[in-house]
């Protein structure tokens, strides 16, 4: 087990290295530079700016220098937000997106699991049809439409929640719902499919035959197995949801890393782009690792040591 985790962590660094390398050179190949503006700076000023941010060196030199910085935890300065380091920017914005993402994830799990279990157990009933219709809608309606609908309802029609912003719990409810509901829909559908499959298995029949209460059969025996596809979905989904969503952050004016990432790319703020990519890749890889580890608890058939053999 430990060996497996260590090996995966080793691969984490290899993957990060590859991500940085590809992205570094892609960023350089893309036309445009961070110092251009509608009021063009003079040649001299531009040359000084290039020098200041090390952009006057050759690409390989810049690359080596950047990698050297990353190794010691220095992700470089932001070219746009002068005086800010990429690490402080990430430290400012990532917790915001992560906090929002966690709440959204909780919403996704609560709504998704309940809906999935109910419709799985009560297959082809009124409950199944209505919940699954809702899930289909949740998957197909983009989150910005959900966000707009929430604003229309809870701000203008029934003034209950603040319209946008960040800082209080009430400001969190709508963005978390807008972000979490589409995920809830996925979770619901997966749970339902898992449930339907598991509930027809022999060991469930055995459980029922030996006289267990239906509640116990579902929650104790069936759910654990039905959750397997959900868990593997949650790995990448968690990484995605924690690193924020451009659309939801924009609509609700949330100072998260999602907007930062997109803006830094359009601004050619090279170091910020690379920094956020490193964060995103790390989260993605780590959560996939966590999912794999969780599998051993949920499914005794999976054994890490053997998969490595």
């Amino acid at each position, binding site marked *: 087990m430990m060996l497996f985790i260590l090996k995966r962590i080793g691969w984490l660094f290899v993957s990060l290295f590859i991500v940085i390398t590809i992205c570094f050179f892609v960023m350089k190949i893309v036309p445009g530079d961070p110092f251009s503006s509608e009021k063009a700076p003079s040649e001299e000023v531009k040359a000084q700016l290039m020098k200041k941010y090390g952009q006057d060196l050759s690409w390989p030199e810049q690359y080596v220098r950047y990698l050297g910085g990353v190794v010691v935890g220095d992700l470089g300065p932001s070219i746009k937000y002068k005086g800010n380091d990429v690490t402080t920017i990430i430290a400012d914005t990532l917790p915001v997106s992560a*906090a929002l993402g966690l709440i959204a994830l*909780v919403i996704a799990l609560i709504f998704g699991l309940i809906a999935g279990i109910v419709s799985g157990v009560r297959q082809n009933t009124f409950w199944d049809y209505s919940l699954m219709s809702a899930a289909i809608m949740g998957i197909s309606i983009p989150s910005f439409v959900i966000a707009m609908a929430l604003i229309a309802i809870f701000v203008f029609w029934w003034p209950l929640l603040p319209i946008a912003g960040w800082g209080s719990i009430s400001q969190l409810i709508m963005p978390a719902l807008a972000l979490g509901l589409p995920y809830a829909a996925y979770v619901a559908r997966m749970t339902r499919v898992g449930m339907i499959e598991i509930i027809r298995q022999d060991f469930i029949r055995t459980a029922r035959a030996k006289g267990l209460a239906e509640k116990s059969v579902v929650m104790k025996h069936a759910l654990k197995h039905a959750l397997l596809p959900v868990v593997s979905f949650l790995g990448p989904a968690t990484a995605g949801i924690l690193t924020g969503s451009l659309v939801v952050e924009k609509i609700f004016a949330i100072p998260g890393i999602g907007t930062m990432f997109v803006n830094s790319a359009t601004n050619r703020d090279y170091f910020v782009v690379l920094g956020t990519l490193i964060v995103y890749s790390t989260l993605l890889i780590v959560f996939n690792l966590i999912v794999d580890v969780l599998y051993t608890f949920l499914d005794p058939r999976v054994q890490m040591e053997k998969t490595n053999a």
Partner: protein
Amino acid sequence: MFKSLQLLGAMIIIPLAGFFALFGGQEEERESFVYAEMQSLETLDPAMMTGVAEGRVAQAVFEGLTTYHPETLAPLPGMATSWDVSEDELTYTFHLRNDQVWTCRGYDPANGSAEGFPAGTGDPVVAGDFIFALERVLDPETASQYSYMLYAIKNAINYNTMKMEIEFAEVHRSGSEAVISKADLLAKFPPGGDVDAGDENALREFLKKKATNLPGDALLKADPASNESAAEENSAEEATAEEIAPAAVFDPISWDEHGNLHIRLADDKSLAVKFLKLGLDAPDDYTLVIHLDAVTPYFLDITSFSTWLPVNKKCVDTYGDKWAIVNNIVTNGSYLLAEDFFQNKMVLKRNELYWDKEHVRSESIGVRIIEGESTQVNLYCAGEIDWLNSLPQAQVPVFIAAGRDTAYAGATRPSKDDVPETPEFRNPLDPGLDTNPNYEGFMRTPYLGTYYYRFNVTRRPFATNHENSKEIGRLLRIAFCHAIDKKMLCEDILKGGQIPADTYVPSGMPGYTRPAGIGVEFNTAKARQYLKEARDLGFRDDEMPVLNILYNTSEGHRQIAAFIQDQIKQNLGFDVELQNQEWRVYLDSTQKLDYDLCRAGWIGDYTDPNTFLDMFVTDGGNNNTGWSNELYDKFILTYARDPRRSLADESLRAQLIADCQSQGIDVREIVEDYLAQPTAQKVAQIRMKVFESAETLLMHDVPILPLYFYVSMNTIAYGTHGITGNIRNIVPLKWVWVDRSLYP
């Protein structure tokens, strides 16, 4: 047992608990005045900022020599209580107030010393702070993008661009060594001056401090024996000194037996200019004298600009690149930076140590960072923000229809009928401010900006290199200009009250009258006439490529481009393709002249035609059309830049009259008037005539296709004072406040 459920429960409860622990139900208190910006401010360092949003906050937390009048933008006393202008208008003497200190959040001298506050707190604001700030902007190493706003100062351009050769023509080069003769040295640094060429040590020290492009810069500065003061000034470099073995310290500055100075250079480029004395002097702590290179009529306008703000040397030296962040910043303006949440919000608090604090009516100002334009509108409607400085295009007609008094009066906003008239706002400093109308709702006013298309004059068909006639490119450009119905564009597409533009300099420019008849108005008959003339000269329709219109990706620009495409097809019969590029790529393409037609916009930096016209000089940094005209360059760079000198020199004066005449502008009478009785006012008039001639020439050659003049759109909460919709839509936050007593 129930392992999966426990796990699930933990996954839900732990983050929730953590979250509530972090945010424990804190509700925000609203600031006295709240407005929104689209993106976090790039920086509050006046030398480094480029944006309008940054300038707005910087001018609230810092105060320059002069400040903008909120309505007319005329210079109001700021750190300078008064100023004198010399007769030749080349020397400005500012008398500074002696009652303002540098301060920061939380600092109150009543509670004891400035210890524990950022470096510089509590110091008086003196002339030296301005000199430090301005030198810093012009220091090439600072790489300030707006340094050109200081180019009026004597020697500033050379100082900033390191053009050493100009002033030090006497520098002889031999290999990697520059040699300056003793005579030149003495001329440059006369005995008895600040730096005496006779005093080798003083000169050596000065050179090490001021010159760049010396080899091993850090080594030199770190040489403790010969440069103690430099080491003291910069402790970071002192650290480097310790790391370097003494043997590595060498001296590239030496004298030969004839007293000539030899300087070893790091590379074969020139020696930097920092020898040059900038035209800045501080005879005492509260007097600042600024010498100009040439008469600059708009000089007192630009001294209010953010690049001119003073900064505190101790603070900058102590914190380096990070001096302008909330924990370190030391300021002198009407507001203090109290809090700064990246990408979220900035809070300004009234500076209780500000000299004019009784006129600062808002206790606090909230700057919220709201990236979505619709979100901004929503927040305005909900009464959470008091001022919107832009609107999504789709909303403009809605706001116009709603009118001024009732526009989006949200639940928390009283309508004008519900409340008594607002009390008058008296400003003893300038009674003119009384007239600030107490606007409410949506307000459109002319704005000093032009939206136009550039023609690429280096590429067929608009180029002048047609084998049959040089005129063909120009005729085609004029034909295109006449073929666009700008009125329809403004009324049916933009719908925001934009003003159709037939010329380039915006119509609201004070003191400038556009010459009659120079415009390229919409006229299909003329358009076809010019096209026919081009054909007569040998242009064949089949050489017209499918033109492409380049614009940066945006729905607004796309709509305009599609309209132009349609108009060209309809009125001239040519096919045009649209091409959009992401912002930075578009900038790259326009600078490389990789387009046929491209969109552009220009916003004036100051209230003078020069800010619009000087960009089209040959190889101007923002020209981007490839257009070049000798006469135009002469108008802008000779006559308009230094009208007094042009008038003083007899042959130049004759040329000026003839050149203006060639553009149909008659200046003989004013010039004669001026010669009889020279006044600054007449110089200014002649200068404006020169600009008129220049624009006439520009519109004759039309390297650009003007489309419309911008309008500013402010949406203002009821009871808000100080937002006047002036020509540059500058909102000096000092004067802004919301009369909350009007609210229920």
